[in-house]
């Protein structure tokens, strides 16, 4: 079982292939990925309300795709409304087609450890939705910004997308800040040392596989895993079991 917990759907402002939902599913077949959890690139980069709505329609048509509700730290009220709309079993959100919340402090140019972030964290916690937060090495992207949030909501489930990127030591620094903090592995940094150190620090039950497709080629992150952990039977937790349990996927 392979679950990609970090993926997108929609247009990117680079000369790369624009993949439709059916293209994405074909790509999953090619790279043997069973389930993918995606956020709308429109929602992440421009209009989160329209993007979430578009994604909801896709999720209802593709049973192997699940979604993140993208929120925007500049619009806390509207973000809370999005969590209410899609984060519960209702006609819009259906039965857990949206299984998490996506936050991107870099694109939104606002950190998570702000009043808006605390309010969104509380709503995600109450809805039992893990938060996938983009993290890299800069002040705006640092994994350390989840610490004040975790102090207020110690049982909040938080996934550090990219695990700090090239600065994965920052993710390792906070691995023990809470028992529900997870590291997700994809980035332009594909050294196996990163992956093995994250597993060593977080434990093999709190590291998650992701690709960043459709922005990145899925083989990029897969290659890192295959090279660092050649024995397929030794990577089942990383590749899918952890995600199955965390997101309670069907």
């Amino acid at each position, binding site marked *: 079982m392979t679950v990609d917990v970090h993926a997108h759907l929609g247009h990117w402002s680079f000369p*790369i292939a624009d*993949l439709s939902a059916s293209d994405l599913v074909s790509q999953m077949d090619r790279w043997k990925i069973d389930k993918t959890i995606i956020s709308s690139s429109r929602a992440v980069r421009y209009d989160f309300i329209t993007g979430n709505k578009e994604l909801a329609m896709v999720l209802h048509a593709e049973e192997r795709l699940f979604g993140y509700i993208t929120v925007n730290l500049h619009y806390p009220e509207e973000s809370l409304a999005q969590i209410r709309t899609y984060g519960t079993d209702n006609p819009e959100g259906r039965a857990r087609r949206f299984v998490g919340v996506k936050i991107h402090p870099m694109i939104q140019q606002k950190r998570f450890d702000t009043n808006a972030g605390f309010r969104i964290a509380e709503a995600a916690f109450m809805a039992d939705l893990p938060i996938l937060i983009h993290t890299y090495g800069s002040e705006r992207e640092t994994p350390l910004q989840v610490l004040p949030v975790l102090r207020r909501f110690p049982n909040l489930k938080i996934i550090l997308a990219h695990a700090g990127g090239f600065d994965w030591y920052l993710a390792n620094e906070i691995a023990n800040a809470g028992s529900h903090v997870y590291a997700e592995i994809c980035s*332009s940094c594909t050294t*196996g040392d990163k992956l093995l150190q994250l597993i060593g620090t977080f434990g093999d039950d709190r590291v998650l596989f992701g690709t960043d497709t459709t922005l990145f*080629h899925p*083989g*990029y*992150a897969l290659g890192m895993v295959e090279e660092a952990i050649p024995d397929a039977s030794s990577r089942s937790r990383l590749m899918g079991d952890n995600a199955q349990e965390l997101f309670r996927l069907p």
Partner: protein
Amino acid sequence: MHNLEGLWYDPLSGNDALLADFRSSPHIPVCTVNPLEGEQRCMQVLEKAWVTGARIWRLYPQEQAWSISHPVSKMICGWLYEHDCCLLIDAPVADIDRVLDMTEDAMAVIASLHFYDSADWSVRFRQSSSLYITTRLLHGPGTIEYVYPWFKHHLVFASGAPFGAIKSSMNLLDDLKYPEAKEQVLTGNSVRLLGRIFHDR
């Protein structure tokens, strides 16, 4: 292969150690020189390694925090050009452009450019006869195919190992719609490039 002592501490001793280690090895040593050390020391570093056979050099403007327009950097590029060497350099696209200008687009330059900047460099460098772009950071879906028509003879395989996984970069070469592309990127272009650099051997 390059040497971390040369990058972070002393290019002269780092190059010495590297060249000694690789004297009877099939690997190709990549020496370095740091313009911050000044022109006299840089000339000493360049000439000493050159005599021992160093033909591929790497500059580290980002890691060592200097500008490509640094006068000693210009002097180094000129020296490498005159001595028919090859330069590896990771730098912003505009800085790579400056290096090509300095060397009249006649010295082989290898750069790992990011696919985020491919709209820029795919136009800027498509006429270059001397720039070789590695596949190290071309991990956008379809990026290699997008740039291939212009750079089919100038794309070379690189993984960044041990800071990148070899398999990650290999996976990018699967399923390319150009059947000859994988062989060209993995082998053909590199062999031609090495032939260009080591034509005197």
